[in-house]
């Protein structure tokens, strides 16, 4: 399987990479782990004239942890997320998502920035990052901007990133005490599989046995982008957590998604699974919220 012909560039700094993207624009594609781009280039879905590699830029591989925020460089690998105890403690659902992605071989190459930038509606990292209200930093030569993941995804493979911009960092506020999150992905196999449905949920309680102060539920594979289950979220806020409430939230989430029939499963089945996974991830979130109290 041959790759198309292209010029290859390996900038050593973010500034140098930005200059290249400003010069080449949409003629260029960024490569990090290559686990998505290489496959698309081999299948001739994408034939860029220039491939700009981010793998030699050390600034993009940093993990910067403070008590209040987690900043993850775009080239931090998925395997590194699974191995980070700090991420596991502060953002457990993100680590669950990372563990579910691909295979060990893929996780050693795939990066967090790549998993967001490729914007696959079935991707494993966006749901948990979205429920944590993560933001991405988009950098170009003239400066940088911070974009909420809520408005980052525009459609399958389409994001807010402009041709002269590079996704350089992911920023997440550490959840407050009495908050927790959960992520579940459903597929046919446990490894090397595209998800059938994936859901992440987050709740923050106003005290150890308190009511739900804020809630976010994000569903994957059931729309052109990852979707917020707004009516489920509305229903949860201000209520005391319970199995019955989570069941109702699951039913509400089923109304918030727009799955299609495909070879992986019927729309009806995916919708039903959104209900089940919403309920179960809320259960995980509640358990963590109580443990973290």
């Amino acid at each position, binding site marked *: 399987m041959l790759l198309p012909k292209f010029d290859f560039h390996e900038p050593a700094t973010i500034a140098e990479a930005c200059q290249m993207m400003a010069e080449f624009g949409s003629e260029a594609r960024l490569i990090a782990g290559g686990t998505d781009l290489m496959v698309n280039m081999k299948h001739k879905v994408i034939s860029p004239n220039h491939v700009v590699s981010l793998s030699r830029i050390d600034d993009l591989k940093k993990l910067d942890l403070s008590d209040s925020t987690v900043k993850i460089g775009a080239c931090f690998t998925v395997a590194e997320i699974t191995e980070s105890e700090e991420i596991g403690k502060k953002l457990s659902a993100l680590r669950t998502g990372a563990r579910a992605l691909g295979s060990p*071989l893929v996780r050693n190459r795939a990066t967090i920035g790549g998993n967001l930038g490729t914007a696959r509606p079935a991707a494993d990292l966006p749901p948990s990052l979205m429920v944590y209200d993560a933001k991405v930093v988009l950098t170009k030569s003239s400066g940088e901007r911070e974009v909420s993941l809520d408005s980052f995804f525009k459609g399958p493979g389409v994001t807010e990133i402009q041709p002269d911009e590079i996704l350089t960092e992911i920023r997440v506020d550490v959840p407050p005490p009495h908050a927790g999150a959960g992520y579940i992905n459903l597929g046919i196999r446990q*490894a090397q599989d595209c998800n059938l449905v994936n859901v992440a949920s987050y709740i923050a309680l106003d005290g150890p046995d308190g009511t739900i102060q804020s809630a976010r539920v994000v569903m994957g594979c059931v729309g052109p982008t990852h979707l917020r289950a707004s009516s489920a979220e509305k229903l949860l806020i201000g209520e005391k957590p319970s199995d019955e409430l989570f069941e109702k939230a699951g039913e509400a989430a089923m109304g918030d998604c727009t799955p299609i029939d495909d070879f992986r499963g019927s729309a009806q089945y995916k919708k039903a699974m959104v209900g089940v996974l919403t309920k179960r991830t809320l259960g995980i979130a509640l358990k963590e919220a109580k443990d973290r109290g």
Partner: protein
Amino acid sequence: MKKLINLTINDKEYEVAVEPNQTLTDVIRYDIGLTGTKKGCETGDCGSCTVIMDGKPVNSCLVLAMQAAGRNITTIEGLETEDGLDPVQEAFVEKGAVQCGFCTSGMILSAKTLLDRNPNPNEAEIRSAISGNLCRCTGYQKIVEAVESVNK
């Protein structure tokens, strides 16, 4: 345009002229001549092209040769020493974990990386570590038994 890169493969330095669109698999097989690294799906699904790069097993079909410049690479040919086969290779032979052999290089390299980190893995850990390596003879049971037996 071709560019000269340096690759360290099995502790040996190589200087190779590569095209930007050559994968690490192709350079290892066709330029270096080490054909133990196999080409299966070529899209990162089967793991037959597994090599260890800077201590981590990766799909070499998804790595551009130029991205591997300066990195330390181990292929299946790098495991055997003057004393003979690597204990993981030995275990695969002993336990009958090799059928057609096409997945074996990748399986052994994934298993070796696991054992270097965790000398006595349980069955679940072994199955998870080799989950990116597909055996279409479906001889997984023998493979798991071989890995389990290495440090016993």
